[in-house]
């Protein structure tokens, strides 16, 4: 029930006294209201803006945040007020809802922000008042459409092909998105060129050329150079046929492809040629054959694959089908009416053009569309009057549905533009997200290198570590716990790929004591997902062990390309403060092979560990280049 009705309840109950003399039975006992009746003023502090209201006002809607006991969670004992860290401007509307019972939508606010506020305060958006309902619904629908489009655009075309795609899939993809590969682009332009050539040839062959010697009459070029035109036609049709067959082959769903508009256009474009080949040079049939040649002009529609604007136009017409239908219907009605009137008005005139009602149709159409050829003109006064009424009404009837069509076109066009802009922005956004992600992963790896996993003795802890925020400390601790739980360690892409590569060469592990546990490593290469470990040496120097290092052919010193710095390191200006964390060029990442278990536990090496395996730099201060260093006979 609406809020205000609650105020009238006492009155309604009082009015029940009027039933008492009529009552056949005794009245039930009234409910006892133990709550204190006195009303109090509550203070609601929203980001500094203080709102005050009666408690009763808020109690009107007990299933919202402010009306229920949920608001006690936000009660601040010190200041005796309810504090919400939300938008104060929006809160005004929320509170007005409690006061008036109607929720209004502020037009200048973003619909999503508004929805979020409503969700926070537990108000269902359905109670938006009638005055604002339409605007709210429209904006919401628009927003949802936009979101749907974005997800569609994301999922659609620009997704890179899965690596195991068949040639058929790749072919289809090349056809659908020509800009994915050079070959596709070339083919795209070639077909476009041939479409143009074919259309121009069709046009030019009807132009009259100078007649050949010995003849007076002008000849259309098509007949003069019939062989040349025929060859050109053949070439074009061959290309089109080839293209069509390739598309048919590559299409994931052949039935659906054959039913699509574009393929129908393709077929209609090339059929006349083949039918012409088959048909004999017969006089009777050539009439029909000429008709077929008209279909060659459909080749121009093949351009719609190349032009987005054409597609938009076609889509607009399709979506405006109802308006176009209405236009057609109303025009037909008007034509019939006026044609009838004109016919009867002009019936008396001698030698009139208006010989029948269907004959008057032509006059009506020409007049209504304000063409006015003048080949049929009324002569009687009545005819002229009705003729003028006809032309005036024609303008109206045609002008009415046109704005609707125009606005549809504009909307669809803008949608398309927006889709393109969205796609561009998505790329940037994704790149940024990827960088941020990399940053955070690298932050942890960095943290480990800097000895963060050690116990923090007060002096030895590097300054660079101290500069990390408490959030980061806790986050890293969490990641560390995860490592301990799974008995695996985090590493980055390069290390991982190298592990797979050099795994087969057979390196021994050695580890540093900075890593707490003895981690047994087993090897397997990436595809086989067995347990594997990459252990990092936290040690800075390229120390060469004289111990248990086995065959070491090359040490690949990989100076990785610039891995973007983590945000924290940038903020903390760690370049200046890194004392122990100076430019270490190498840290060792080691892979081990399944050595017999007896060996591994004994491999507790002194703090200057071995280096075999891959030395890598994961520091991201500057960009590096890839180098290979040969270290022999360690």
């Amino acid at each position, binding site marked *: *029930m*609406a809020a*205000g*009705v609650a*105020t*009238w*309840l*006492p*009155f*309604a*109950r*009082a*009015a*029940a*006294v*009027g*039933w*008492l*003399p*009529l*009552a*056949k*039975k*005794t*009245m039930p*006992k*009234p409910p006892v*209201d133990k709550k204190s009746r*006195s*009303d109090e003023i509550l203070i609601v502090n929203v980001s500094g803006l203080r709102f005050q209201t*009666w408690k009763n006002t808020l109690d009107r809607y007990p299933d919202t945040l402010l009306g229920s006991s949920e608001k006690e969670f936000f009660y601040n004992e010190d200041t005796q007020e309810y504090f919400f860290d939300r938008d104060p401007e929006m809160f005004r509307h929320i509170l007005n809802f409690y*006061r008036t019972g109607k929720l209004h939508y502020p037009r200048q606010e973003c619909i999503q922000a508004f929805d979020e506020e409503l969700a926070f305060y537990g108000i269902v958006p359905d109670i938006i008042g009638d005055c604002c309902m339409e605007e709210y619904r429209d904006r919401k629908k628009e927003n949802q459409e936009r979101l749907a489009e974005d997800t569609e655009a994301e999922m659609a075309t620009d997704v890179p092909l899965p690596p195991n795609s068949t040639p058929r899939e790749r072919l289809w993809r090349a056809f659908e998105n020509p800009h994915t590969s050079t070959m596709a682009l070339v083919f795209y332009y070639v077909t476009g060129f041939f479409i143009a050539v074919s259309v121009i040839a069709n046009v030019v062959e009807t132009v009259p050329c100078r007649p050949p010697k010995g003849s007076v009459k002008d000849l259309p070029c098509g007949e003069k150079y019939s062989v040349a035109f025929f060859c050109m036609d053949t070439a074009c049709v061959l290309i089109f046929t080839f293209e069509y067959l390739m598309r048919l082959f590559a299409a994931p769903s052949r039935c659906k492809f054959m039913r699509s508009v574009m393929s129908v256009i393709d077929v209609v474009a090339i059929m006349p040629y083949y039918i012409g080949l088959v048909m004999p040079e017969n006089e009777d049939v050539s009439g029909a054959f000429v008709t077929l040649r008209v279909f060659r002009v459909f080749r121009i529609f093949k351009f719609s694959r190349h032009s987005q604007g054409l597609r938009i136009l076609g889509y607009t017409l399709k979506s405006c089908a109802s308006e176009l239908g209405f236009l057609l219907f109303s025009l037909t009605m008007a034509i019939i009416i006026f044609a009838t009137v004109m016919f009867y008005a002009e019936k008396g005139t001698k030698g009139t053009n208006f010989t029948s009602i269907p004959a008057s149709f032509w006059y009506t159409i020409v007049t209504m569309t304000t063409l006015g050829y003048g080949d049929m003109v009324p002569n009687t006064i009545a005819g002229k009057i009705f003729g003028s009424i006809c032309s005036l009404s024609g303008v109206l009837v045609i002008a009415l549905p046109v704005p609707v069509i125009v606005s549809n076109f504009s909307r669809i066009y803008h949608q398309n533009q927006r889709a393109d802009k969205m796609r561009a922005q998505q790329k940037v956004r994704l790149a940024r997200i990827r960088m941020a992600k990399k940053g955070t992963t690298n932050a942890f790896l960095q943290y480990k290198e800097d000895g963060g996993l050690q116990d923090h003795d007060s002096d030895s802890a590097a300054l660079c570590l101290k500069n990390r925020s408490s959030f980061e400390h806790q986050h890293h601790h969490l990641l560390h716990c995860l490592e301990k739980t799974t008995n695996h360690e985090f590493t980055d892409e390069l290390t991982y790929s190298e592990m797979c590569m050099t795994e087969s060469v057979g390196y021994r592990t050695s580890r540093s004591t900075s890593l707490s546990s003895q981690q047994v490593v087993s090897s397997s290469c990436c595809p086989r997902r067995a347990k594997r470990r990459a252990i990092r040496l936290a040690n800075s120097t390229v120390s060469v062990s004289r111990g248990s290092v086995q065959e070491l052919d090359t040490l690949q010193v990989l100076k990785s390309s610039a891995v973007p710095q983590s945000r924290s390191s940038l903020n903390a200006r760690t370049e200046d403060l890194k004392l122990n964390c100076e430019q270490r060029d190498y840290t060792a990442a080691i892979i081990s092979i399944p050595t017999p278990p007896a060996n591994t536990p004994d491999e507790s090496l002194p703090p200057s560990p071995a280096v075999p395996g891959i030395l890598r730099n994961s520091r991201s201060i500057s960009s590096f280049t890839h180098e290979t260093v040969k270290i022999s006979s360690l």
Partner: protein
Amino acid sequence: MGAVVGTLTMQTKQRQLSRDKVDDDLEMTMVCHRPEGLDQLEAQTNFNKRELQVLYRGFKNECPSGVVNEDTFKQIYSQFFPHGDASTYAHYLFNAFDSGHSGSIKFEDFVTALSILLRGSTREKLQWTFNLYDINRDGYINKEEMTDIVRAIYDMMGKYTYPALKTDAPKQHVDAFFQKMDKNRDGVVTLDEFLLSCQEDENIMRSLQLFENVI
């Protein structure tokens, strides 16, 4: 020529009149009614200042112009009885509240009636009820008036009741009522008969006390 001008001016005059009427209508809807002072109302009714404040705040919230017209009243009352049609009974109720017969209930009327119903003496309450039943205010309740009232009350129940409503249920109810109330069997119930009969009935007396603490 003159005739033409004459008709033209007449037209404009008519338009002027209609415009004035429209302005008048606007003015009427803008009229705000303010109640008498708080002290006066406190003296006139059985409520204290605090209760009057609460009542007025609710009233003013619902009716910012300060008066309730019959349609709004019907709307509000109907919200409490969604099952059936409360409009007829609300009409009678409206007339009972609108003691000044002005066509709209002001805050004073509202509060006076509430004061009687909730804080008044038994006699006052019964008198108010008699006024409610006596639709034409002639001092007598006859069978037709009572039937109208009872039918209006039954209308509020709606269609789906248990046991199902029979068509002659109101009539039977009215007959029972008259049986009880009409002492001298003259077909009408006067105020004295009404008061006497109700005071004799224990149920009614007891029920009257139930609504004391509604506010």
